[in-house]
């Protein structure tokens, strides 16, 4: 049983701001992303995509395209045997629907693939798209969630009301009475806009059937190598062994690649049918409008408070616009489940009830995007705190303080059925509030130039991560993610190869995993090579998502390293004729404690491989170990504060300054942690002020390029100062908690809080993101509270 104290063992590398081992190749331009993988003979795929949001396919005529020189094939759903992917939850509240690999009978969003063109170049493939003709009878599309009620034609016949998942996981018969007798009930509706993760590298793949290995080898940009293997094998009727998924460098994931897309399956199918290698690289239009989106949600919430601002109970009706299909493998239940179960955050809420629904629309399917529902639930909880504080005349920090789960409450069990392991919720709030005072932000608010208004926001929150099988099993996916297995092998030169089923998309696993293993083996991280992203190299794993990799994958590596260390000490003991308990591994040597007597680990490795006849007591040959980890899941926590400025003339918002207090347990590499925080905040600022995958009422995407989908640039980013607290995790051998999503989670809440502070003289509240300059201008046109009274 691992304990927090085991994280306190003597450590040399964990905690160091090591420059990343990945960096050199990325800086030289010799990193290898999917579309960089050379293949002299690969054909190129492009997709014929529906220009219609919702309709019945009457015909598709591919024959003119086949006349174009260089076009090898044009395949439709029938050519793929009407293959499908089905992401479902095995529960009564979930309606199971299939996603055809290529549209079959109906189209359900603009951009849905109707056919795949295979040609000798991408240029020719795109020419051929123009030559494919089709007839589609249009229905009125369902774009907004309320459209489903007034459109007779359901998106899926299985769900006539358009609701694919309807969860009432938490009920409380006495809640209504408690609200009725509460001093104040804050009754609000919050909305968040549809987003796209927009990693700089879009999706892509290269597929080739290899007769010698009886295998379809699919190189693909994904966060989930083994789940992509399972999905492709299922869709194409192959054994798992017959699909090898290779993941080279991944140019950003953010949940956008924690999925199997239909395009990758179509390319794999084409390679198998044609028995020729085929490659595809998504362009930005496809990425923004025809892949996966998320976060379009609405929360109608009532929260009761006592006169002193203490929460009495909360009821939430949550609706998520999940798009046209349920994604594989995490399903359209992902956002509704997370929103309902994790809603209460860092607060003690005595009574809680919620209904959360996933509603189908004629938009691309939703999938995870960094934080999933947490940016919204934190925005809602913090918005409720600000409203209650305003109505009760209590300071915004004070009302949070009165409701926050405290150190003495842990392990705390909430009405959401979750038991929280220790965190620094109140400490983070106090430190953040103190930092705001110390930074002189109140003074800076007073100093705004004429025509500008400033405000301060604060948001205290947690980030649940590293969900193991015990927690994931509650979701009832047909396959339950959660554990990881690591394998370590030391070669004859004393170098170590580590394999993990997690899969880095820029998080620096090659560095941080090596730091963890290095401490336990007493060698330099430079001697440890992480291999990942190849289903033939690693027996199984669940990939990288939800802050799980360094916690679970790194936790498994720590266990494997501890076991390998035992082997090294035993061999050293035999070679030095001492007891293994007296041997320690330090600075590349196995040393007899308290003496100068030692043998180098390189020498041990050489002996084990080349002179094993000297080792008479060993039952096993070589130096190899396995480790596994499967924590139930944990909460990191943090508190953010932001100073924002509104240009009253234009309604434009600039975030002037930003403070972070975060607690992710033991920090393996501060450079990486701070990088995750800053990058996450950039995405959160984008979600709050700039980005929206917007649609016209007839279902046409309005954000198809980076000219209309506005990813923040350097000019939009404030300085960010980061303060660390450390509450070690007791579920893992390393004490590490996940932390990849915190920045994205906190930013919308804190910026909205700051904007509402800036606009406090107006009798209006912002309760949606993204907030546009036009929204701000509308509020500024309202009379001030003084004028209206």
């Amino acid at each position: 049983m691992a304990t927090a104290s085991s994280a306190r063992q003597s450590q040399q590398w964990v905690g160091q701001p090591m420059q990343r081992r990945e960096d050199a190749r990325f800086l030289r331009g010799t990193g290898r992303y999917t579309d960089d993988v050379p293949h002299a003979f690969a054909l190129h795929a492009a997709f014929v995509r529906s220009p219609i949001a919702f309709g019945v396919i009457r015909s598709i005529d591919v024959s003119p395209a086949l006349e174009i020189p260089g076009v090898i094939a044009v395949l439709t759903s029938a050519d793929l045997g009407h293959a499908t992917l089905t992401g479902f939850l095995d529960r009564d509240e979930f309606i199971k629907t299939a996603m055809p690999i290529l549209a079959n009978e109906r189209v359900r969003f603009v951009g849905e693939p109707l056919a795949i063109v295979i040609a000798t170049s991408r240029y020719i493939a795109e020419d051929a798209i123009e030559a494919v003709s089709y007839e589609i009878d249009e229905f009125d599309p369902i774009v907004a969630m309320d459209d489903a009620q007034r459109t007779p034609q359901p998106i899926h016949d299985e769900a006539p009301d358009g609701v694919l998942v309807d969860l009432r996981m938490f009920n409380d018969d006495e809640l209504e009475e408690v609200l009725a007798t509460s001093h104040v009930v804050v009754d609000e509706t919050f909305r968040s806009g549809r987003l796209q993760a927009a990693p700089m590298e879009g999706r892509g793949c290269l597929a080739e059937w290899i007769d010698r290995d009886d295998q379809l080898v699919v190189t693909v940009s994904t966060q989930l190598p083994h789940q992509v293997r399972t999905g492709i094998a299922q869709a194409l009727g192959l054994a798992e062994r017959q699909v090898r998924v290779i993941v080279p460098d991944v140019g950003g994931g953010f949940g956008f690649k924690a999925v199997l897309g239909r395009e990758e399956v179509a390319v794999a199918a084409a390679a198998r049918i044609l028995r020729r290698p085929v490659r595809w690289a998504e362009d930005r239009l496809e990425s923004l409008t025809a892949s996966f989106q998320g976060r379009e949600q609405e929360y109608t919430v009532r929260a009761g408070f006592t006169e002193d601002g203490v929460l009495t109970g909360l009821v939430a009706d949550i609706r998520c616009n999940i798009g046209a299909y349920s994604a594989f493998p995490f399903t359209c239940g992902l956002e509704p489940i997370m929103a309902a179960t994790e809603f209460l955050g860092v607060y003690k809420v005595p009574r809680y009830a919620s209904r959360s629904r996933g509603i189908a629309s004629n938009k691309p399917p939703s999938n995870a995007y960094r934080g999933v529902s947490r940016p919204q639930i934190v925005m809602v909880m913090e918005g409720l705190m600000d409203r209650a504080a305003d109505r009760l005349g209590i300071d915004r920090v004070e009302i949070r303080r009165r409701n926050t789960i405290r150190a003495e409450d842990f392990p705390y069990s909430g009405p959401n059925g979750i038991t929280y392991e220790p965190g620094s919720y109140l400490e983070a709030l106090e430190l953040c509030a103190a930092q705001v005072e110390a930074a002189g932000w109140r003074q800076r608010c007073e100093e705004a130039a004429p025509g500008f208004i400033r405000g301060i926001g604060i948001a205290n929150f947690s980030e649940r991560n590293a969900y193991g099988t015990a927690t994931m099993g509650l979701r009832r996916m047909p396959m339950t993610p959660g554990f990881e297995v690591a394998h370590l092998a030391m070669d004859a030169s004393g170098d170590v190869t580590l394999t993990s089923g997690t899969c880095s998309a820029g998080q620096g696993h090659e560095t941080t995993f090596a730091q963890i293993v290095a401490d336990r083996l007493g060698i330099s991280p430079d001697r440890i090579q992480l291999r990942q992203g190849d289903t033939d190299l690693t027996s199984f794993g669940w990939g990288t998502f939800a802050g799980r990799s360094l916690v679970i994958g790194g936790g498994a590596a720590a266990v494997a390293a501890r076991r390998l260390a035992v082997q090294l000490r035993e061999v050293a003991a035999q070679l030095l004729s001492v007891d293994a308990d007296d041997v320690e591994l330090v600075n590349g040597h196995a040393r007899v404690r308290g003496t100068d007597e030692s043998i180098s680990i390189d020498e041990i490795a050489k002996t084990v491989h080349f002179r094993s006849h000297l080792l008479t007591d060993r039952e096993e040959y070589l130096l190899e170990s396995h480790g596994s980890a499967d924590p139930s899941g944990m909460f990191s926590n943090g508190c953010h504060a932001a100073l924002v400025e509104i240009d009253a003339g234009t309604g434009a918002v600039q975030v002037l300054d930003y403070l972070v207090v975060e607690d992710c347990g033991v920090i393996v590499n501060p450079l990486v942690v701070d990088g995750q925080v800053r990058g996450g905040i950039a995405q959160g600022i984008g979600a709050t002020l700039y980005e929206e995958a917007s649609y016209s009422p007839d279902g046409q995407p309005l954000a198809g390029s980076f000219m209309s989908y506005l990813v923040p640039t350097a000019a939009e980013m404030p300085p960010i100062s980061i303060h660390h607290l450390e509450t070690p995790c007791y579920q893992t051998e390393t004490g590490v908690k996940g932390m990849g999503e915190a920045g994205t989670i906190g930013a919308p809440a804190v910026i909205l809080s700051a904007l509402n502070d800036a606009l406090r003289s107006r009798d209006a509240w912002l309760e949606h993101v993204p907030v546009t300059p036009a929204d701000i201008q509308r509020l500024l046109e309202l009379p001030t509270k003084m004028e209206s009274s």
Partner: protein
Amino acid sequence: MSESREITLTVNGERHLIVVEPRRTLADVLRIDLGLTGTHVGCEHGICGACTVLMDDEPVRACLIFGVQADGSSVRTVEGLAAKGELTDLQQAFSRHHALQCGFCTPGFLMLAEGYLATTPAPDPVAVREMASANLCRCTGYQGIVDAIVEVAEHRFRERPI
């Protein structure tokens, strides 16, 4: 449309004679015809800047230039930066400041910054941030990128030949 033309291109000091379709982008010429895949394609409409290379010392979006337009020019790509083996001061500063995570946008930022620093030897941090806003990064939040470029600019200015 498909009548190919012969162009000459000097890339990282090496002269190439290439036959290309007029519609072939410089990005595809570099990546597919010359195998220089360090130049990445992020948007194909000139916004993200991942494909930024130096064409006759000027930063350009390789996705918006046709190969035929580059005929006779000298192109420098990320592969040309550390040609002698050791990483350049700018590349080292990027690593030190954690100015890259997934690395996909990094070559574009390096080439953008090299082009900028060649003509703007003593920029202030505000100007560097403004310049860096020409390209998109989705991982880092830009602080490390700006810090690395500012540090190298100052160092190069101090050490400049007088």
